[in-house]
């Protein structure tokens, strides 16, 4: 790791080789993906810190990373949960926007009559935002668990519907207005760390506990690993899927609250690029898109990695388009390396059978 701190680009290559080696060693461990992500975060951070320390290591830049990560991270965690069951949730960003629009409209409506009352009702407004998320998730859950529609199609449909409602509601315009308390939370810090980031960590820990320590988490994992086996083990698939999409919807609602806390505006097409970005993050964080394996820690680290690369590119004066290239290359490289390593394992007899 010491090599990375030096500015010589050759040393960077060296560090990468080093990381590959460490990665190979860590294949033996169970939590391989989380460790690899940890390494990737450190390497990404070190590279940009070495290349442009004056801008990248400035307080404002670090603050920006910490403020922009939470909303993406919460949606990515929700995506991870959906993928854990073997599904996917494309409607998350639309749910988050719908929730933010509802909150903003509600605040503006109340404030038009009585500004003080609107401020006092701040907890209620946030609660309504979360309920919107929950309802959005409930619709997804019903479609997936009751009607048996494939998650990717069900959420593709609801994505269009939620987004359509949001566009029709706002008329395609940006809404202004949010409780001052929410905005001040968005700008406040706890011991130097932005409150939004603290909230993100809290959400991540809670979801982590649900996945690893509760019966529901176990059922969700089993459902994703092998739906047939789960059914024969007496797991109620419908209930599990319903709970999963309720949870992802609520996380979408939380993301909506974060949207509004960061900027006191709401619009139907905010974060349009997030839909595919969070899939990238979830997969990068070690989530198996076919279900059965995921770690919240890995997803949090993947979120940070992409935000670090994003802000690092900005610090180096590279464009958003170059960041888009980097994002794609990172995703495909990680997937290819994973696949090659998986095939090299002697245990994986299936790989040998398939690869001819």
């Amino acid at each position, binding site marked *: 790791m010491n090599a990375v701190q030096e500015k010589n680009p050759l040393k960077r290559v060296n560090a990468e080789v080093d990381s590959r080696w460490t990665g190979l060693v860590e294949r033996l461990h169970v939590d391989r993906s989380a460790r690899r992500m940890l390494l990737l975060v450190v390497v990404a951070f070190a590279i940009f810190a070495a290349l442009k320390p004056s801008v990248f290591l400035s307080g404002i830049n670090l603050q920006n990373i910490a403020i922009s990560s939470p909303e993406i991270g919460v949606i990515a965690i929700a995506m991870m949960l959906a993928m854990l069951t073997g599904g996917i949730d494309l409607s998350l960003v639309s749910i988050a926007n719908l929730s933010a629009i509802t909150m903003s409209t509600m605040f503006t409506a109340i404030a038009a009559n009585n500004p003080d009352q609107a401020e006092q009702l701040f907890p209620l407004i946030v609660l309504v935002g979360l309920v919107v998320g929950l309802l959005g998730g409930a619709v997804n859950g019903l479609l997936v668990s009751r009607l048996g529609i494939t998650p990717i199609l069900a959420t593709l449909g609801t994505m269009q519907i939620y987004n*359509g409602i949001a566009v029709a509601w706002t008329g395609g315009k940006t809404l202004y207005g949010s409780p001052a308390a929410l905005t001040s939370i968005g700008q406040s810090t706890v011991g130097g760390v932005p409150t939004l980031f603290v909230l993100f960590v809290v959400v991540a820990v809670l979801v982590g506990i649900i996945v690893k320590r509760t019966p529901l988490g176990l059922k969700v994992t089993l459902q994703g690993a092998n739906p047939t086996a789960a059914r024969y083990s007496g797991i109620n698939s419908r209930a599990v899927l319903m709970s999963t999409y309720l949870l992802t919807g609520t996380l979408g609602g939380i993301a909506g609250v974060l949207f509004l806390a960061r900027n006191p505006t709401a619009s139907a097409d905010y974060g349009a690029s997030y839909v*595919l970005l969070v899939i990238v993050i979830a997969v990068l964080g070690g989530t198996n898109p076919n279900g059965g394996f995921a770690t919240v820690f890995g997803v949090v680290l993947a979120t940070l990695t992409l935000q670090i690369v994003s802000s690092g590119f900005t610090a180096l004066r590279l464009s958003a*388009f170059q960041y888009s290239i980097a994002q794609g290359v990172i995703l495909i490289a990680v997937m290819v390396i994973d*696949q090659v390593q998986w095939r090299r394992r002697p245990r994986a007899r299936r790989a040998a059978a398939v690869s001819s």
Partner: protein
Amino acid sequence: MSAGRSGLAERLRRLRGPNNEGVLALILLVLIVGMSIANPVFFTLPTAFSIMRSAIVPLIFALGVLLVIISGGIDVSFAAIAVFAAYTTVRVYGSGAIDLGLIGAFAMALVIGGMLGAINGFLIARFRLPTLIVTLGTQGIFKGVLLTYVGSRYIADLPSAMSWVSTTNLIEVTTDTGRAYLHVMVVPAIVLTLVLAWVLRRTMFGRSIYAIGGDAEAARRAGIRVVRTQVWLYVIVGMMAAIGGMIYMIMGRSASPQELVGGELDIIAAVVLGGASIFGGRGSVLGTVLGVFLVQVINNSLILAGVPSAWQRAAVGVLLLVGVGIQAVTARGSGRAALVHDAQEVTV
């Protein structure tokens, strides 16, 4: 009596088609008749031609997506390939370096599209990666490379080799409701549709795609070269995307590298609506054509019915859910549920 009834049932089943194409055609017909009664403006030649015109580009994209979906994958990079191939061609022609006429322009776009498709195909077939993830990655790469290294400028006028087609119409009719134009670019769309229908039904390559989508391992054991077929499949899909991109820019009479990308899911929705199974192995050109037209007709009807265009997205979403919802429920009833359930493991 009973024989006659079962004969009728058999005929009805055949009319319904293997992927519910009959049902789709019926819905389309009911919609058109209903709209025509509600609003006489709808049932006119200008409307028909404008719907056909607006369906050209989505149809070409949808046919490419259909190929990928039949093979058991999902492609979200086709729009990026389309805009990459078409914009690069316009840039090269605009710089005056090469001018080989319209045919040359299309050939150049085809080569670019085919190469980008080959990248997808190589990654998917060689490393057996999930198609959604790979195309998600390549989408970002293609778009980024285009905007960083080729150009990010909006080009307001196309090179002369291409621009003359922009205003060429195949049919021009003057009716009492106004003049109706049918753009000449419907010709490549129709030709492509017919060729693809023939390839999928009658050629070894087409049948291999179905076989791979049904069960890749079974297809391999049956002697189909899975890797080679998949790579060619993505090359062809890349080429089709390039044609779609070229036609889009010719009909729009301008070239912008920021367009098209972002509308991928709408196209996928139309293909799924057309009866293609997201699990692979099922789908037809006819169904896809009907699916694309259904979406276009609904969009057009909503405008005529005075519904704000903002609701179009929601309407397509509802349509998609109703369509797949019916499919899912009937599949469960007819005992295919087990099959569908098992297939869920290999999705995405």
